[in-house]
């Protein structure tokens, strides 16, 4: 469903050129959940944004659903992959009501039945009609992230791109949002690509995980290998060590 072939992305030119992503290749099958982990600045979010069509690759290629997805995207290609961002405070327009936030992608995609789609999308993320005409500041962080998920789902995508979807949320709210995401993924058969710096969150959601360091994938692990701490690369081991060091075991 998602295929990256030696993808490179750089910013700036000449002496100021930064190679954020350097020759990254991986493939995510339809219905699979794939995770990208690494520290800030390793290029994980840049890859996600390039897949969404927000950045133009400087080398290599992206294929979505078997077709090349370059800088110029068709409407159908943009509909295919939808993104949920980290910060629910920054990713929703504060001057728009929830209703308008959800109506916009429908208008862009030329989809009708607005009156039935909006309540259905809200219900799917656990919000009710009473939230429909509120502004983002009248909602809690968790409710805002639910709106962001509804906005992604409303155009019925097949790929969900999740950029740290719970790292701005409280622990108890994180659990609710992770459950919601798994449920939606399973009921719609979505392909998920998730970026996080939190190994426990990635291990919960994904079956395969790529570890990134300085713009490159150093290692790809199955989730069982991650749980057994069976990492080959030194960087992955240090990442695992710091996550396990502070982890309280299950009660």
């Amino acid at each position, binding site marked *: 469903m998602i295929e990256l072939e030696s993808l490179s992305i750089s910013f700036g030119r000449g002496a100021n050129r930064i190679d954020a992503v350097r020759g990254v290749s991986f493939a995510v099958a339809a219905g699979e959940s794939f995770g990208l982990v690494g520290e800030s600045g390793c290029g994980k979010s840049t890859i996600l944004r390039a897949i969404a069509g927000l950045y133009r690759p400087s080398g290599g290629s992206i294929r979505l659903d078997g077709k090349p997805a370059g800088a110029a995207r068709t409407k159908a290609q943009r509909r295919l992959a939808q993104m949920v961002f980290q910060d629910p405070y920054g990713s929703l327009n504060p001057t728009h009501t929830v209703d308008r936030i959800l109506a916009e992608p429908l208008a862009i995609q030329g989809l009708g039945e607005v009156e039935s789609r909006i309540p259905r999308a809200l219900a799917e993320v656990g919000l009710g009609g009473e939230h429909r005409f509120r502004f983002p500041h009248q909602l809690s962080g968790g409710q805002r992230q639910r709106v962001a998920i509804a906005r992604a789902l409303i155009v019925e995508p097949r790929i969900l791109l999740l950029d740290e979807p719970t790292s701005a949320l409280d622990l108890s709210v994180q659990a609710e949002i*992770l459950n919601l995401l798994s449920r939606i993924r399973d009921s719609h058969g979505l392909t998920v690509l998730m970026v996080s710096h939190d190994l*426990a969150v990635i*291990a919960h959601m994904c079956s395969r995980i790529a570890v990134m360091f300085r713009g490159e994938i150093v290692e790809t692990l199955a989730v069982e290998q991650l*749980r057994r701490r069976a990492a080959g690369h030194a960087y992955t081991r240090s990442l695992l060590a*710091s*996550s*396990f*060091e502070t982890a*309280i075991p*299950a009660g």
Partner: protein
Amino acid sequence: MTATPVLTVDDLSVAYRQRASTIHAVKGVSFTLGRERLGLVGESGSGKSTFGRAILRLLPESAAITARRLSLGDIDLLRADERAMREVRGKRIAMVLQDPKYSLNPVMTVGRQIAESYRVHAHVTGSEARERALDMLESVRIHDPNRVYDLYPHEVSGGMGQRVMIAMMLVPEPDVLIADEPTSALDVTIQAQLLRLLDDLIVRRGMALVLISHNLNLIAAFCDRVVVMYGGRVMEVCKASELIRAKHPYTQGLLACRPLIQEPRRDLPTLRRDPAWMDGA
């Protein structure tokens, strides 16, 4: 922990008066702090940060702070005048905040900020303060202090910026360090490194640490005792090593809803909030 507490908090409340109603951000919080590492955990709105600021009286005027007792050694923090509080802030109780990007002065080199923090409290010459700042940079494991001294905050990484903040707060040798989410803006590997450093410094200097965080794992790994807050109230106080056997349903609920690396789970349990938690404690 020693017999004589460094900080005594008895029935502390912070209330914000609004036109029609009063909001209790902190209600009836009591505990004593010895020379130990005390963790303060809770989710957003639990009052944990308000509590940290109340001790230093750094809250806006609309906040009413009341307590049966709030004292640092023999200083009454409730009744001390502003002049006395200036002596307390920084020199006796220091505070490290979450994001070094916003808590360092962007137009002053990091070295000068540390030197200034020393000169405010100690009567020394400029060159003595500079020497001291360089020593401090070294003790927070910055390898070339002479180069870093002359850098501006935007020229250092997040991890280094946070070390600079810690150096700045520790240079007047305070009795109590309040660290409010000191590492939550940082990557996990740097987080662990920085906490070990902080731990080492406070143990060596015999300081008391109040570590405020929403991260249960981190608090359990680095503190001696834990205070769990919810809705401005203390739900329970326990040894950090016994946090996993927490008795309060709120703490148990929080522990249960964490995803775990070690074991797969289909659905995460979610927290059921009991309105009675807001009455008791």
